[in-house]
């Protein structure tokens, strides 16, 4: 790795890259659809520090992708509306900025990569052109300089023969290579926070391993805050520093990664961990979470998980929603009976 020197230095040398880079407080998002008002995100609070990986874990429909879209400011609106909360980047509330200021933040400070790289890249331009364009627009570079940077970036994400491949179109890359191109685009302007929404879900496992180790390495080198949005508990165990578990638009548990796996303190997290088949174990009866996640237009009162929960009592079925109890150092769980959950094994 020699090509990344120029790109790297800025990131590491920047002394401001400590402390929380992005803080989201009490974020609320709703979708106004024909079927009614869907409460997709209901008061989500989290933060990510420079150089840290936060995993947001949840099943489809739990609001994890909507949260990411709201943070990026790319929510489809209508039908989606941010109705409350704050999204602070380095102390500045993004929700109070003008569209133009936000766009500048989006390009330079917070970047995002998506699950489907093919549809996230423009099919009619070469990847070299698309990368060079970023430098020309945001850094005022010349065409030749931009192209040089594009080659460097493709090198950085380990695309072989980068010098030739800048001339290729997105469809000429394989799935894994395409994901690398997208990572290159996201890193082009040296963002401080990278949001990765299911970055490896569409890839084969051997390719997934390559991409995850690339992401982890780039993050370490540049001290980026990485928000990894996923449903895969294996990937999370491999790369995350902290985990936030989401259910029905709320955070139900937040803790450092070892804590979550060793002592899950919310019934949902616990049940999820027990329901995944494991590569290194055989014959364990998979425990099942009965029923289905709630409809976002009609979330049950009290704890949203109560109809599926084996710990649920009358208290859980009544408002208010259980708050995030501090159950251990840096470990919070939104369950009235977290003590019981932790004792059980």
């Amino acid at each position, binding site marked *: 790795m020699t090509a990344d020197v120029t790109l790297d230095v800025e990131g590491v040398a920047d002394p401001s890259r400590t402390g929380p880079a992005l803080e989201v407080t009490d974020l609320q998002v709703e979708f106004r659809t024909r079927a009614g008002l869907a409460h997709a995100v209901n008061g989500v609070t989290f933060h990510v520090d420079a150089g840290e990986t936060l995993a947001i874990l949840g099943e489809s429909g739990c609001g994890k992708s909507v949260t990411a879209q709201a943070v990026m400011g790319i929510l489809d609106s209508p039908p989606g509306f941010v109705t409350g909360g704050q999204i602070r980047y380095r102390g500045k509330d993004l929700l109070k900025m003008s569209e133009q200021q936000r766009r500048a933040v989006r390009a330079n400070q917070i970047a995002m990569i998506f699950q489907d790289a093919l549809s996230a890249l423009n099919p009619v331009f070469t990847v070299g052109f698309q990368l060079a364009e970023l430098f020309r627009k945001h850094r005022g570079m010349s065409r030749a300089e931009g192209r040089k940077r594009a080659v460097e970036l493709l090198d950085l994400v380990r695309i072989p023969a980068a010098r030739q491949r800048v001339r290729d179109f997105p469809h000429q890359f394989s799935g894994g290579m395409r994901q690398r191109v997208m990572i290159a685009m996201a890193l082009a302007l040296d963002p401080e926070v990278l949001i990765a929404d299911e970055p490896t879900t569409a890839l084969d496992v*051997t390719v997934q391993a390559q991409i995850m180790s690339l992401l982890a390495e780039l993050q370490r080198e540049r001290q980026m805050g990485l928000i990894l949005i996923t449903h*895969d508990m294996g990937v999370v165990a*491999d790369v995350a520093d902290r985990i936030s578990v989401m259910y029905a638009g709320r955070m139900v548990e937040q803790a450092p990664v070892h804590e979550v796996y060793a002592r899950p303190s919310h019934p949902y997290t616990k049940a999820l961990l027990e329901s995944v*088949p494991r*590569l290194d*174990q055989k014959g364990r009866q*998979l425990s*099942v979470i009965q029923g*289905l996640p709630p409809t976002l237009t009609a979330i049950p009162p009290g704890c949203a998980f109560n109809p599926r929960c084996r710990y649920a009592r009358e208290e859980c079925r009544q408002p208010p929603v259980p708050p995030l109890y501090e159950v251990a150092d840096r470990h919070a769980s939104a369950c009235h009976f977290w003590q019981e959950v932790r004792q059980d094994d």
Partner: protein
Amino acid sequence: MTEPTAEVVLETRDLVKHFPLTRGVVFKRRVGAVQAVDHVNLQLHRGETLGVVGESGCGKSTLARLLVGLEQPTSGSILLHGRDTAKMSASQIRKARRDIQLVMQDPYTSLNPRMTVADIVGEPFAIHPEVLPAKRRRARVQELIELVGLNPDHINRYPHQFSGGQRQRIGIARALALNPKIILCDEPVSALDVSIQAQVINLLEELQDELGLSYLFIAHDLSVVRHIADRVAVMYLGKVVEIGTHEEIYDHPTHPYTQALLSAVPVPDPTLRGQRDEIVLEGDVPSPANPPSGCRFRTRCWKAEEICAEEEPPLVSRQQSAHPSACHFAEERDVIHAVG
């Protein structure tokens, strides 16, 4: 666990499927062939689950399509209960097909959105009317719906009114309608959420015990396959590279590809981070239209030597491998447990 002596219900012998690559619309010229499935020999015993794993493009889905008759093999044969399907008459094949049913991957596209659940689950009877007289079909459909854990009152609903997991149950009910002996599961849980996956896996296991089914379970998720399969075949670029019981494959893998594949699967346990033997493969899977000579894995293999390019390693038991492994340098290596 199955007895090793249990009868073979389904077998493939040197099964080959090449898709010709052609140019031109009316006057087609053959310019090559995609070798989707290449000389595959598998045996499925009564009551067992044979897992077939591999990455995209390895030919596992084509294998399923061959076995249910959606594709015709280029060469080789498929034996159902010991009888070659190629030598059967049309009516015999029709009858034989009732015994082998398919559960598909995507519960959102595998059910006709314009048919009710009653029509979907009852369709096998409409296609094979000799199985059950028309007036008993509705009751049987309700029985099947109940068997897979859905409310039989809901048979007049349409697929879109159900969740993904429930739709997959409908797909399973359809597959069970004709009392088959064999069910091919083509990635049956990979489109489902984790908490729903467990429900469907448990259902499949219960049904197997209750009805004595044999499963051919095709998946890319090695954790799921470990959980459900008795024996496992690993495929790469149209070929089986290693086959054995689940202990042999998961705890004593000998083929480098199997080892790399297993090593790449993340285990939901952060204490194992950095503790496992990590193999990160370089590059992507080559195109099946132009596979490497000799051993097909050699372009990504760290053990590859000259012999690998010249001589294709047969799938046999070796000195260093108690079970069949198609590698000249087969050797055990534990990649899923913490080392030392």
